[in-house]
């Protein structure tokens, strides 16, 4: 059995300390009674209380959640379609442009995406608000979804679909009964990715929003522009907590699913 060498243990410790120490400090100082980072004035949850009483933050959280759910659902739908087109549709006119438009947003600087969408929305006279942020987020996150889903589509055995068609399924039934269950994990992770990207986005949302809709990142950004804010420390701690619980739960579920699948496969092998 392998063990950690002295060198590897050191580099892992330093690397992970660097990755996690800033967040740990943020969590610790969110419970600090004092407004200052360097003075520990005793344990207190007063910043959480202030945060939860602040209507503006609650409104922003609600807007962010709405935008996230709508845009990631729409992005998953469009992105899965796009992935299907990329992997299965074969040749068609303008295919190169299509795949270019799928990959370009992944490397496009956010400031440019935001600027160009804003200029479009102004050009066609669309009122800016939740709706325009949803349009903007859907556009860039559908590209991430299609990359995730298309990698799953390329790796799976096409003869399964053909078998379903031979056995009398319509193409739609074959998709629903065979393809969809197989690509489902990729579709779900695509949705989660799109949702996270949407919750996280400051730049594109700032460009495409109007006075009526403020998202959480926009609110955080304007609050911390001038320096550390204890309320934002509390908010960060809540968000870090949610993500940690979410990721751990997801990894436990996938691990269980993998174990169950391995057991099924073994059982199937025995009955043969």
């Amino acid at each position: 059995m392998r063990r950690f060498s002295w060198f590897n243990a050191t580099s892992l410790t330093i690397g992970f300390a660097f990755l996690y120490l800033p967040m740990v400090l943020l969590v610790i100082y969110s419970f600090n009674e004092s407004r200052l980072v360097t003075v520990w004035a005793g344990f207190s949850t007063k910043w959480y209380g202030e945060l939860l009483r602040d209507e503006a933050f609650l409104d922003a959280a609600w807007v962010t959640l709405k935008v996230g759910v709508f845009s990631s659902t729409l992005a998953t739908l469009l992105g899965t379609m796009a992935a299907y087109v990329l992997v299965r549709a074969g040749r068609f006119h303008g295919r190169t442009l299509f795949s270019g438009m799928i990959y370009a947003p992944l490397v496009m600087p956010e400031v440019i995406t935001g600027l160009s969408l804003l200029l479009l929305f102004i050009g066609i006279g669309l009122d800016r608000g939740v709706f325009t942020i949803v349009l903007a987020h859907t556009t860039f996150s559908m590209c991430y979804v299609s990359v995730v889903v298309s990698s799953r589509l390329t790796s799976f055995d096409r003869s399964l679909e053909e078998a379903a068609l031979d056995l009398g399924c319509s193409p739609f039934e074959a998709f629903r009964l065979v393809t969809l269950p197989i690509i489902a994990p990729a579709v779900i992770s695509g949705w989660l990715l799109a949702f996270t990207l949407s919750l996280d986005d400051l730049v594109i949302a700032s460009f495409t929003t109007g006075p009526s809709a403020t998202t959480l990142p926009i609110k955080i950004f304007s609050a911390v522009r001038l320096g550390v804010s204890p309320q934002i420390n509390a908010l960060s701690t809540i968000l870090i907590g949610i993500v940690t619980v979410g990721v751990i739960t997801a990894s436990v579920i996938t691990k269980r699913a993998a174990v169950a699948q391995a057991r099924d496969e073994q059982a199937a092998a025995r009955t043969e």
Partner: protein
Amino acid sequence: MRRAFLIAVPYIWLLLLFLVPFLIVLKISLSDVALARPPYMPQLDLSTGWDGIKAFFSELDFENFVFLTTDSLYWKSYLSSVKIAGLSTLITLCVGYPLAYGMARAPDEWRPTLLMLVILPFWTSFLIRVYSWMGILSTEGVLNSFLLWTGIIDEPLMIMNTPRAVYVGIVYTYLPFMVLPIYSALEKMDESLIEAAEDLGCSKLAAFWLVTWPLSKNGIIAGCFLVFIPALGEFVIPSLLGGSETLMIGKVLWEEFFNNRDWPVASAVAVILLLILIIPIVLFQRNEQKAREAEGQ
């Protein structure tokens, strides 16, 4: 019929919300500022027919691009963005490689956990991860009070609101993008190659330099591009940590648009930024293609 529908929906969506907006940026970058709503001219007026279109095109010019070359603020910002992005990519490599190496050589049962620990920050808000350094790097921050307390320094270090803080921010937030491709290259490597090299008389260091490093080259190149490309157009990190001293083009574009309300110049800045980015993006694509072909063999 059904196939046409399947192609058309995402296609039209991307045309309308990705390509058309970009063409609008291109067009406005060739227009002039005007005191109007929207604040640029000429406006395309289709009601006057073909003459209107001709008049419209005759009024477009490269004035804004000429302006960008004459005002030193812009080319200085481009240069300093390239410098900051390039240097922080190198630092990220120096920090990320040992971490990726340690992960790839860790006991098998540890690896999934270590991998999750690298990915976890990626799911946490980018903005919050950048913000977390504000309390650490400021003059009265955690780092300075710690160093003063231990007596290593007598005066607080000025890091916050300088380019140094931007380096820290970029290295910190983009570290997972560097670690993951290097890790996957190192993990695939056959370790008996190292043993062979050592049996044949290589020292440990020589074996690393002659065997491990070249075999992880694809991961290193991929990681460097994944850090460099987004870092070049970065806005959040320079505006929160960099202060007014730090010139980065993403921030300049933002200020040109929101503070100066000069849309044509902001659009021209965007077009040039994209032209600069095309080089690393094409190189990155080529590297990925080569890696895929090598794997296919």
